[in-house]
């Protein structure tokens, strides 16, 4: 780095990166420590990771988080893509209203949506707390994400490709399947990549609407913190960090294998 500006920026950048990562890195490091409280170094061990897989509560929470995340991704990407298509292609009254209201779940503070949904599920309509309520909440948040990401991609596509396909004899459905969808794939995958971590690690909204006895992984972490059983938390935390990383590497690998 040559200039003074460059050096200053490098300094600021480095400090900021450290600021953001040091706590997490230390947490990961200490997840390998043989200390019950997970804050002192008492020797290297993998037992906390083992405990995760042996501990039924953790396994169930992990399972619940995964199931919810996967269902959310599938529903939200499909619904999001279809809606984005309709929003992009057609002109109709109320389009702006729909776009604005799709923005709502993303912009609202989590605590407000959490509370509103809880009240709605318990006092207004009778939706069971647990998988139904959590799924509804997650899908309500994730679909707008998918809509906007796919919409953004749509603005950069050459739509005469669809016309060419139809001109060559392919009907609407075939065109959609062979031309439109492949062209939208990067955006669909991008939304899946964004939705998964959000759904998997969401705490506030899930906590409010989960009801008694339904534990996702973040909820488990919360209870563990409340009751002081912190050692396993380090290991779980490391997993939370590792997951998106693995996901990203997977995407990278997949992108190299097939062309966008």
């Amino acid at each position, binding site marked *: 780095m040559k200039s003074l500006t460059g050096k200053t920026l490098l300094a600021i950048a480095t400090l900021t990166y450290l600021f953001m990562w040091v706590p997490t890195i230390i947490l990961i490091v200490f997840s390998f420590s043989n200390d019950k409280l997970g804050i002192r170094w008492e020797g290297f061990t993998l037992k906390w990771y083992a405990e995760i897989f042996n501990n039924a509560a953790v396994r169930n929470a992990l399972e619940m988080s995964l199931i919810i995340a996967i269902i959310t991704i599938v529903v939200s990407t499909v619904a999001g893509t279809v809606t984005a298509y309709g929003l992009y292609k057609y002109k109709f009254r109320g389009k702006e209203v729909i776009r604005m209201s799709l923005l709502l779940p993303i912009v609202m503070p989590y605590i407000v949506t959490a509370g509103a949904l809880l009240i709605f599920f318990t006092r207004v309509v009778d939706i069971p707390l647990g998988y139904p309520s959590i799924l509804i909440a997650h899908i309500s948040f994730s679909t707008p994400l998918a809509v906007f990401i796919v919409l953004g991609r749509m603005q950069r596509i050459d739509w005469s*490709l669809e016309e060419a396909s139809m*001109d*060559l004899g392919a009907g609407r459905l075939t065109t959609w399947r062979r031309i439109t969808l492949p062209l939208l794939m990067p955006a669909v995958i991008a939304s899946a990549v964004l939705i998964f971590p959000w759904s998997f690690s969401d705490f506030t909204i899930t906590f409010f609407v989960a009801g008694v006895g339904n534990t996702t992984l973040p909820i488990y972490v919360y209870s563990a913190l409340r009751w002081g059983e912190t050692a396993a938390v380090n290991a779980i935390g490391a997993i939370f960090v590792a997951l998106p990383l693995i996901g990203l590497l997977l995407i990278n690998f997949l992108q190299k294998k097939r062309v*966008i």
Partner: protein
Amino acid sequence: MENRESIPCVELRNLVKRFPGVTAVDHVSLKVEKGKVFSLLGPSGCGKTTALRIIAGLETMDEGDVLIDGKVINDVPAYKRDCSIVFQTLALFPHMTVEANVSYGLEQRKVPKDEIRKRIGEMVDLMGLGGMEKRRPSQLSGGQQQRVALARSLILSPKVLLLDEPLASLDRKLRKGMQVELKRIQREVGITFLYVTHDQKEALSLSDTIAVMDKGKLEQVGTPEEIYETPRTKRVADFIGASNIFPGKVTASGNGKVQLETEGGLRVIALEDKDIRSEEVTGISVHPELVEILPEGTGLEGDNRFKGRIVEMIYQGDFIETKICLDQTGGLITSYLSSRLNRETQFSPGEEVLVRWSPESSNILLG
């Protein structure tokens, strides 16, 4: 009993298409002959691309009919029509190989695989695309992409091939080469081409018939010679390069000639045309290359001789675009002065000269 051969390949009857605020296609009727190249020529926004898209089925018409091979196809959706369009942007599927692109249409028709392979082989030979079957569009040059787009459409043997300014994005040299290619391919394959362009030179060199459009209306239909040498309206004349236009009315006739008096008071002589009534004439046009420049002293006797002063000479290589201000009216006349000639005569700006053209060169305008 109508002869099968005389049924036009494509026919438009009174086609109208309106967009908010503008009528893009205004009661256009035309017939496209089988096996020939038919061009829609006009400035940007004249409605030619819209008309093409209506024929392809990508736009709906408000009024009128589109017929292919004598059958009305107004309600037939695009994917069932027997025509194929080559887009200006080519619209090659970026995520498919050249092979997959070209075979796409055949796959939609459920043509068996070995038949597809055979036809692709023939098309690749015809287009000179050998060795590129497995590449993707992004790995091809502009000219190669052109040919893939053509191959993709031609392999379906459509009744008519619609081309929307396909050469617009190519540079000059490539464009000339592709024009020759296109003509060769059309001759070999024998399919009717319906070609849209704003480049009059392109239209003149490629077409068997040209239809000039402006602001949604059909101005004139004819062979390239007819369009170039006898444009019938001011707009066509201007567009085709007969840029010397004199609005006026017929004031006398006789001896096989007619005399017009222009708004500026010039007396212009043209040859009489028996099929045109004098009342319909609105002016005449003259191609710049038919306007001669003579030294000042030459006599004024004879038809279409006027005195003037050279105000501008723009060197264009093989000719010099010369603008002369006429003494009588103050209006400008454009002449293409041959560079070779000017080496002898040495005209220069500011010089007083005489311009003249023969009555045969005067083209009568009707609108």
